[in-house]
């Protein structure tokens, strides 16, 4: 076991981890933050996407110890003072989900995407979520939600 410290959803955390533990497992099992889902477990589906220093990464392919001293944000960290993040609001408004399994990863990748300064076209948004698979194939409403969120964020 090794002592690991990093910033999780804005607060500094310290925890003991095994050398072979993955970031997704530490977040789900040790911090009991169950929003992120492990889907394919081989960095294809994107359901485990979290923000690492503000950028979306697949936490099933990051060793816990690789995030030492870095900032990690999960879906649970998005809402502030009981107010949903604009991307979360837009997913609700546009019904950007069906079964919901891919949703946390989609939202986190959406936040990562909209963090950039450029205004994104619909096709750039589609390319931006190419690493997130929705097995219900409900992509249209997800793209609608991200377009709406972009408008809200840029207001």
């Amino acid at each position, binding site marked *: 076991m*090794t002592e690991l410290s990093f910033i999780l959803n804005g607060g500094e955390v310290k925890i003991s981890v*095994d*050398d*072979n533990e*993955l970031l997704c497992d530490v977040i789900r099992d040790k911090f009991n933050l169950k929003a992120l889902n*492990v889907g394919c*477990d*081989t*960095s*294809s589906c*994107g359901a485990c*996407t979290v923000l*690492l220093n503000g*950028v*979306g*990464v*697949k936490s099933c*392919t*990051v*060793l816990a*110890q*690789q995030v*030492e001293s870095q900032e990690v944000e999960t879906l649970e960290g998005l809402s502030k003072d009981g107010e949903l993040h604009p991307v979360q609001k837009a997913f609700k408004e546009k019904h950007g989900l069906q079964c919901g399994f891919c949703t946390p990863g989609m939202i986190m*990748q959406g936040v*990562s*995407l909209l963090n950039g300064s450029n205004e994104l076209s619909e096709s750039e948004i589609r*390319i*931006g979520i*190419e*690493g*997130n698979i929705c097995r219900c194939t409900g992509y249209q409403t997800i793209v609608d939600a991200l377009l709406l969120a972009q408008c809200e964020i840029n207001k």
Partner: protein
Amino acid sequence: MSWIKGIKLLLNDFVYKAPRSLNEALKLIREEDAKVLAGGHSLIPLMKLGFASPESLIDIGKLEELQAIEETNGVLTVGSCVSYRALFESEMVKSYVPLLSKVASQVGDPQVRARGTVGGSLVHGDPASDIAGAILALDATVELVSLNGKGDIVKRKVPAREFFVGFLETVIEDDEILHSISFKNKCHKFSFQKITRREQDWAIVGVAVAQSMHGIGIGLVNLASKPVYLDIKKYEDISELDPEGVSLLLDSVIDPPADIYGDAEYRRHLAEVLLLRCLKEIKETT
């Protein structure tokens, strides 16, 4: 040994070490069954599938000197731990070898590009690696470092064209770390074409072509057991190359694999079509 518990893929037990300097990293990798970890986007999936089970992982991903992108005396050097994302966001890379920017922006998906590194991809030596195709086309030089008997760091330079040996095999030795990739020629005429079923997939076939004042380089992706360089030196002018010429050239170097995405004949056909498209695009670039 990796195993499957329920449906979760687990990693074998290993010792994780994050050295603070390149020298320390080079010492640590001399240990039995040690593997170098950069972004982990080739190695961790291999470990999950049980294809690799190292005793220790030496994380070089945070070593600053391996993250540098710099230009000295007209040579652009890219550190091995530069991520694809950092690569295509770099203005210096864009102005020097825009082919590399373009290829980096199309590898995998955004999350993979945020973690995967150029050096990690090269030492993995996947025949379907887009980046390998680009560095072959750009006639890059791969710089490997190791420790000599006195404990000093020594460099070995290998032309990209001699770096890949076979399936997932390169010339890198167990005690070496890929330090950087350097490009001595500015190159603004280029083309990169690949065919994938879905955006995030590996190329079924890819072709990278770069033309500098020193000639034309062609890198072929997923057309043999390793990334392949196609030599067209005997053609002084690419306009001499017609479909038949291209077909003959390709036949001399490719040995396409077959899988669910296509058989060897289909890949051969794609290679020809993509190479002609690349040459056409280059001809039309002023």
